[in-house]
């Protein structure tokens, strides 16, 4: 049997291959290998994705750690400011200071007994033994 285009030199390989197949070479699809390959691709992709996710998560976690630290510092600073301001307020409200200012700067004097009228007897309401109070 001779191959097309080489009538005079019979090919040693040619004899066992049908002519139609020789002329139209095909490769049989190995379905198992293909499946394996796809599984591998999927596996590797998942692996890479998971690694990226872990890396991203770690990065986010670190970023959030920085952010949280910053916010906590900010909160602590605000609380410290608040307490400093309260201290300043209480210092300014000191009775001795107020009295000195009233007498020295405003020239106020305590009213005489005949000039003062007591309007109301202050009786504080009894506070229950256990109560909730607002926090400042």
């Amino acid at each position: 049997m001779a191959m097309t285009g080489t009538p005079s030199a019979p090919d040693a390989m040619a004899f066992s291959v049908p002519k139609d197949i020789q002329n139209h070479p095909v490769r049989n699809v190995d379905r198992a290998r293909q499946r394996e390959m796809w599984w591998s691709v999927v596996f590797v992709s998942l692996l890479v994705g998971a690694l990226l996710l872990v890396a991203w998560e770690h990065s986010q976690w670190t970023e959030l750690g920085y952010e949280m630290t910053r916010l906590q510092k900010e909160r602590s600073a605000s609380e410290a400011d608040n307490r400093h301001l309260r201290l300043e307020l209480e210092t300014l409200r000191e009775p001795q200071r107020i009295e000195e200012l009233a007498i020295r700067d405003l020239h106020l004097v305590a009213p005489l007994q005949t000039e003062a009228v007591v309007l109301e007897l202050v009786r504080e309401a009894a506070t229950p033994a256990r109560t909730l109070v607002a926090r400042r």
Partner: protein
Amino acid sequence: MKEADPRAWQQTMRGRVLLAAALFAAWAVAIEARLVWLQVYRHDAMLAEAKEQKDRKDTLSPRRGDIVDRRGRMLAISVDAVTICADPARVKHPEDLADAACWALGGCGALEREAFVARLRKKGSRQAVLKRQVTLEESERVAAQQLPGMFMKPEPRRFYPNKELAGHVLGYVGTEHEGLAGIERSYNSKIRGTPGSLSYEVDSSGNAFSRVEKPPVQGDTIELTIDTQLQHIVERELERGVAEHRADGGTAIVLDPYTGEVLSMATCPPVNPNFYGAFPPEQWMNPAVQGIYEPGSTFKVVTASAAMEERVFSPADMIDASAGVWRNGSRRVVEAKNHNYGVLSFSDVLVKSSNVGAIKIGLSVGAERLGQYVRRFGFGERVSGDLPGETRGQLSDPRGWTIGTLASVSMGYEIGVTPLQMAAAVSAVANGGVLVQPRLVRALRHGSARTAVTPRELRRVVNRRTAAELVSIMEQVVEHGTAKTAHVPGYTVAGKTGTASKIVNKRYSKTDYHVSFIGFVPSRRPAFTILVVIDTPRGPSRFGSTVAAPIFQRIADAALRHTGVAPTVNPLPPVLVQASAAAAASSDLIRTAAAAGAPQISVVAGPPTVPDVRGLGAREAARRLARLGLVPRLTGDGIVVDQDPAAGTALEPARPCRLWLGRVTPALPPSLPPQ
């Protein structure tokens, strides 16, 4: 010519490959060996080093609880101050850094600089504290220099914004935040809180991330019974009195006789807890609870109580105090100013403060019974316990009393009491005969929960009738007895003076005295028991009536005005206060008819009218109408769109008020702003 071997290159390549493989293998072995060395043999050391570089752990100091007065005014507060630290591992030149730090801190002595350098040289530590609790300006100057390895750490510092006010009561805290005196010490376990911890990692730049925090538990806030304004008044008047009479010092206590609340406890000379180190330790002693004095004639109240309660005497019984002298062997007791009162009624023994009369009363009561009453009034025991170092006073066993001792105790000698004991005892007379435990703490606040400290009645000391009779006698002391200077215009005052010689060089001095006055006002339903004790006045007059009673009078007058206690003698007619129509219509104002003789405030305004409830929800509208006595009748659902009677109509209680509800928002009345 020899033909080249076509396979020679393979030999060459093989050799080279083998060489490369050997080198690679050697490199790999070296790397592996290094890894094994680092990770196996030096595992612990490397782990420790890594943790050292990356992991940080801090103790979070709890903020010490605040101390506030009965009206919530701050008396002690902790705020963040700055402590300057350095990391010795990052400091290359300790001397230079110490110089720079000294400059920023406004200069420091050679010793301080040397201490800085020594601390900076301790390489094992990551934190060397250079200076604690520096001022804001100092910390800013240090920060501005950006010194390598230096950092600042917040640390709480205690401040007392009212300076000397109630300094002895509050006490102070040391640099380790432990209470060392006063309330700060006695309630230290409540105020200090519980430390927390903070674990975190840092990157190469030292920035923190990944924190694990166990927050500290903040200390309780202590709510005192002290009234800041009243405390100021008492301290001011006490200081003035001490200065006027050139005395060594003084103590004043204002007590609520019914609850035992100490409204004010003042001591002169005062101390400033902000600078506690500037005062000698003996000045930190609080004489109100730690100082013992012989009360003198103020103690005759106790003697009289015992006699009346045991029915040994009634107020009208007569007692012979003639000759003005009592003799017991070689001992001779005379009346003050060598008076000779003759025969006195039992009441007049107190009114005129007769020593001889008091001795005769005491002798009639007897040592055993008088001793019982002395103890029942709280002498010889710690009455409060809110302040550290409170003393029991000095009281000997009555079974061992001689006639002389009994005579002395009857007129307030040979017995040591604290001012707080004395104030508590007379408060028992003032409140009808019950000894109430005096206390300085009104409530504890933990977070948002407030736990009140309830008044504690220790025991009944005398019955109501005896107490009432004593009040009457003590009123006479102020009206026409030894304490006329304690009279407060407009109020009935009951009280007793006392002048007791001090023991100097084991003998009773003829120049140094404890002069005192104790009283309560208004006498029939007292708001305050006030005790004033002045130590060694050196003015021309040295009696309780001339030194302590006027101070009492000024304190009582200001305190009554401050707390709005209405006059009890010829009270003014009720004061009418004009209220605005809007206030009258809208509110729950104002029924402040006070008890016992207080003026009544009445609302003088137009008649109340039906409120405008349009635009409100059905429930809120019904609530408002029901509060005014109207009966709401609802039609439909939604919000109120119309009402009958209309807003502004005169109010007729129990009249039905019809409300139409709908889903359409009605036009708001002009007085209401749009939501």
